[in-house]
């Protein structure tokens, strides 16, 4: 029998109505309803956050074979319109070793209407765009369009994970206020859970094989410029889950109880990958042919490995693939690799010529990440090499280690930092050297202020109309050289010249520059040298042809302080660096010095500034130096830093007044 069209349409209409009814009557889970009932904390006027975290919960359930089932619940309330962009569920996983078995999200508007997001609202995305290939992925549900100010957005998801790692971290605080943050861990009988709290994180509560940690009404964490990472005092928990002694589980099997465990793990997974192929052997010998000492061999091989392209391929992340390099022969053959690939190839090639080297895991972006009390590889995001060297190697990247002897650290990934130095961000950080039995953290060396030098010699002629012509010889070292290399690398000659013209003009668009020479001495003394000439029309202010006013600190004047904020609650890390300048300024005929500051000297324990100005016949000799020591300044001494900068600015901005000599 044929179905009449009218009935069919009615059925379709009914189905559609039912569908919309289901939406309209969507219910939020109990935890989200409870979270949404919480009131916002009192905010300081003019300091309302974009959102408040109402609920942040992780429930970890370890199975007998080490599989981890974790359920996460998270809810926020939108406080300010800018907070709407945080209404976004994000469930990360690693293809191959974990999966998101369930993800749900809801929004609750100001009138308590609940909207349940549909499966079709969920995107599944590769979460890194820099790697050639990565297993890191995420399921994402963007809730911004459903949220208004006052709305609550919440989500929960369950992840099943089969990983070798059994460590994790739980951060209670966020950069917005958190009303409730809790973690619960369940383990099979006989397993041990050890949670170590940092910065006020609580001890656990235990109920049989279930462990709980909970914090409530947490203020937002606030970081301050140049504050060491750990001074932020963000409450967190480090977690170690261990099966019974002697029992080997299929997953969650790795234990890191000491730094020696981390060193041994690093050595165990990396050493087998460094076997040298015949091609590697041949290349290493070719590169070092004629090299007589250790330094020249390390440099030849280091420069070669650095020249290989950086490309990252991440496989087997759940099995520790993020720490395991590809074999040296494979990297050598394809001609590219990531940091661990490069460090491993470097070790392999150095081994060919009889130089021993070890892998070193470091944090490349922050040298204050490592908490020595909790041994773990999780702090580290970068791999370099520690090379055993002799006295022929003498650079800022060398340390004398009581166990390993004389060690040169080599970062074969950095495209800017020459062999013999370390990128500035890595310097001074704690690291693990991947050698069996290495039971202590090692601190990377820190270059002295003179190692990060910006040195300038300048000859300048000042004309009666206020224009100046100058010749400059600049020498950069260390961090300053790296910065200059970065600019040069990313600009062609025309752009580089334009950058100089903008810098030298300092607001005067008529400044002209001729670059005479640019020498990157990365291969020799590691300096970067630029020699140029410049002209700046109207540099000196000509007051009705009677006065000429100009600043003798012609280039790189301190114009403003980086520390304008009135007060500070965290220590301030002063980074070591140095600026030194010697200028000869020829005065215009017909003018005499009417007013000038002859010398300024400011000294603190974190920095020293001096400037002297001396008239010798028709010229002024101007010397200026600014040196910052490697120092942590406590917050109570913050005003000293501000005073120092104020004084430097004042000194750098102080002009010389020339007056016309009466006929």
């Amino acid at each position, binding site marked *: 029998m044929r179905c009449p069209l009218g009935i069919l349409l009615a059925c379709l209409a009914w189905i559609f109505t039912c569908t919309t009814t289901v939406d309209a009557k969507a219910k939020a889970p109990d935890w989200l309803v409870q979270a949404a009932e919480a009131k916002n904390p009192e905010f300081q006027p003019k300091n309302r956050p974009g959102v408040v975290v109402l609920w942040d919960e992780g429930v970890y359930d370890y199975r007998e074979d080490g599989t981890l089932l974790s359920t996460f619940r998270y809810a926020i309330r939108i406080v300010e319109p800018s907070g709407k962009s945080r209404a976004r569920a994000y469930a990360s996983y690693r293809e191959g070793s974990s999966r998101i078995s369930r993800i749900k999200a809801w929004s609750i*508007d100001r009138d308590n209407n609940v909207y349940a997001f549909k499966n079709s609202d969920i995107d599944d995305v590769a979460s890194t765009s820099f790697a050639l290939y990565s297993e890191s992925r995420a399921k994402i549900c963007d809730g911004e369009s459903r949220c208004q100010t006052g709305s609550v957005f919440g989500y929960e998801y369950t992840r099943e994970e089969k990983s070798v790692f059994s460590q994790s971290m739980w951060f209670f605080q966020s950069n917005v206020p958190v009303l409730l943050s809790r973690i619960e861990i369940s383990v099979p009988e006989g397993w041990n859970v050890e949670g170590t709290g940092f910065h006020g994180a609580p001890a656990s509560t235990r109920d049989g094989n279930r462990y709980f940690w909970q914090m409530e009404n947490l203020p937002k964490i606030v970081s301050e410029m140049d504050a060491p990472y750990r001074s932020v005092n963000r409450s967190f928990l480090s977690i170690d889950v261990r099966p019974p002694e002697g029992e080997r589980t299929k997953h969650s099997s790795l234990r890191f109880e000491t730094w020696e465990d981390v060193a041994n793990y690093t050595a165990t997974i990396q050493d087998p990958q460094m076997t040298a192929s015949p091609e590697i052997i041949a290349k290493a010998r070719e590169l070092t042919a004629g090299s007589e000492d250790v330094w020249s061999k390390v440099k030849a091989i280091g420069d070669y490995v650095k020249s290989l*392209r950086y490309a990252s391929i991440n496989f087997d992340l759940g099995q520790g693939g993020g720490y395991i390099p590809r074999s040296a022969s494979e990297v050598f053959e*394809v001609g590219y690799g990531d940091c661990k690939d490069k460090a491993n190839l470097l070790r392999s090639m150095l081994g060919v010529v009889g130089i021993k080297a070890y892998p070193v895991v470091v944090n490349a972006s922050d040298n204050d990440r490592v908490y020595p009390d909790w041994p773990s590889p999780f702090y580290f995001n970068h791999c370099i090499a520690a090379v055993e060297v002799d006295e022929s190697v003498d650079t800022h990247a060398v340390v004398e280690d009581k166990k390993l002897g004389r060690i040169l650290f080599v970062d074969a990934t950095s495209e800017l930092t020459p062999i013999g130095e370390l990128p500035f961000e890595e310097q001074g950080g704690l690291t693990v050297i991947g050698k069996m039995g290495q039971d202590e953290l090692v601190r990377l060396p820190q270059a002295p202020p003179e190692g990060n030098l910006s040195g300038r010699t300048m000859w300048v002629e000042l004309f009666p109309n206020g224009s100046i012509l100058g010749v400059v010889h600049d020498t950069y070292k260390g961090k300053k050289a790296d910065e200059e290399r970065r600019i040069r690398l990313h600009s062609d000659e025309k752009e580089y010249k334009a950058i100089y013209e903008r810098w030298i003009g300092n607001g005067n668009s008529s400044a002209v520059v001729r670059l005479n020479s640019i020498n990157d001495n990365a291969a020799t003394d590691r300096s970067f040298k630029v020699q140029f000439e410049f002209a700046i029309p109207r540099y000196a202010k000509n007051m009705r042809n009677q006065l000429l006013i100009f600043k003798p600190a012609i280039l790189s004047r301190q114009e403003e302080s980086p520390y304008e904020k009135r007060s500070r609650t965290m220590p301030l890390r002063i980074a070591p660096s140095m600026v030194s300048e010697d200028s000869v300024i020829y005065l215009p005929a017909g003018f005499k010095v009417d007013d000038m500051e002859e010398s300024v000297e400011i000294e603190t324990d974190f920095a020293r500034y001096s400037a002297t100005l001396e008239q010798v016949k028709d010229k002024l000799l101007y010397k200026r130096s600014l040196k910052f020591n490697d120092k942590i300044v406590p917050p109570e001494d913050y005003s000293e830093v501000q005073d120092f900068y104020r004084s430097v600015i004042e000194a750098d901005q102080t*002009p010389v007044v020339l007056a016309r000599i009466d006929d």
Partner: protein
Amino acid sequence: MFKAKVLIVTLFAASLILSLPMEGAAWEPLTDEERSSTQSEIDPNAGAEVLYKSIFMDGESPENSFREYYLRIKIYDERGAESLGNYRIVYDSNGAKLGSHGARIVKPDGTVDEIEKSEFFNQNIKNNRSGSLRSWSFSFPELEPGDIVDIKYRIDLNDYYYTPQLFVDFQEQWPLRRADIKVRPATWVTGNNYIKWMTSKCDSKGMKKDAHGCYNLSVGNFGASIDEPHQPPQEQDVAWLLFYVGGDGKLGDTYWKNEGSKLYRKMVGTTKPGKKVDEVVGSILDGISGEEEKLQTIYRYCTTEIVNSLHGEPDRLSADDRKNIDSDMAAEKVLNQGFGSPVNVNTVFCALARAAGFDARMAAVNSRDGYQFSRPLASIDTIMRDRCVAIKLGESWSYFDPGGRYLPFGQLDWQNENVMVLIADKKRLELVPTPVSQADSSIQKSKAKLELSEMGTLWGKVAFEFSGHFDVAFKRALDGRSPQEQREFVKNVLSAQWPRAAVSAIEISNAANPLEPLTIACDINITSYAEAIGDRLFLKVNVFQESAEPEFPETSRNSDMFFEFAKREIEIAEIKLPENFELEEASAPRPFENKGVFIYSPKLGIKQKSNTLLYSNDFTFTATFLPVRYYGTVKKLFDDKHAGDQHTITLKKMSTEASNL
């Protein structure tokens, strides 16, 4: 400039690069010229050069349609080598799949290093309800100057995916020596539809059809795309090709007349009188007789009584409300629900005006920040996407855009000024230019009442008032922010203007009021504003431009100069000087002008009695577009203005006896 390490090529963006060889075809032979080239003739500074780029889009057979890409690049220096690190090909795996592909490096000595197939990594990068994106990525080993890189690949399209449209941008990161584009549409396309194409800034006579049904274009010698201040929009500034198929055969005026007629039919439906329309017109126009007053009343109603989904207070609409918005909604429905999109608001305005007896029409208008209008580019969706309302007042048309919230009555967005507008008409072609607003319509007025200390600290109150396009732009920037966020935004803007100033007591008025001008007031305190040395203070008299950078810092330029709108900036400052200081050298900055286009009129005076400096400046700039050949003149004018804005006077401490007088 595009500097990303990972080059992403998407099938959708189609502003693609490469192309050609057939399945399994050999690499394109290298010419002696390509081998020996040591620098780009187009730009000797370039770190690399695209020697050859081709795209072949073949849709002749629905079962075997594909796009083929070929790219050949010569590396000249380290930057060029660095730019070609990792390469990623992205495509929609629901509609396409990667066919043959390869990449190789030809070294200067002729040795060839081909990337192994195993070094191409395939990954699903996004899955969602609208599709699935996959990528194939690979990395070149370290490249050196002198290397030539070839990349080729083919995207096979499934039966349903094929769309005969192609956009090619010829100016990207590096100069381009030669490009061949070939398109073979399906026979069903060429049988019943019309092939159309358009090029911009290409020295070419257009595409030529060959005996195989392919449309071909060969072009070359393009410089890289570069960033310059006041650059015209990308669509007007770089060379490109747009190939498309029109659904009907109409071209030129015939096409536009037909589109005007379609607009008219649609307008008749959406502005149809109804109960609500009549009710609103009756109530708001009751007792009003003047034509302009009536229109203003309708305009005010539309901008204040209908919630605009794009601007204003977005929180007033729920997600479900937003779902109910459809740009084709009739005015009656929009009025009943009380909210709508900008087009809906314009529809209501048009409907109410028609109901009030005006000859009001919906109109499609070109935008200055997109493709320039061109009669042959027969695609209303490409070059006339904006909508406004045209109303015949007397003999001429006036234009209104109440949907573009914060636009004053009778003013269009700057993008829609001085461009072509197509007015809905049943029979005639009404294609005319829109007017351009004068500088007096867009004024930024800055006022300051300040005091200077002996140490050079400057403090006091400043206030700003905006009109016209200034007002619209600032209000839109404040849109959707809470009062706290608005103050933070304003503070950031002021901090950019005075980096060393402490800014406090920020008051913002009329931020969401479409009828009144936006005003901002605050207190500032700038330590060491004036340089103090010995007995002298050196004072920059134009407080508002203290940290201004030169408008055109470069000595040379490649692109034409584009300015959003004609403008006037009025700056007035009173600075009470320290009591015991007097003017030593107090020349005024020099006023100047250029043919009425650029007028700079600074004035400086002093109130002797109160020892107060009076500074004012009235700056007018009326140009909206200037060819690059005028760069020298324009740069000099702006440089002179900058120098004037940085003008400094000297104050000297009076002797004790003098100060006691």
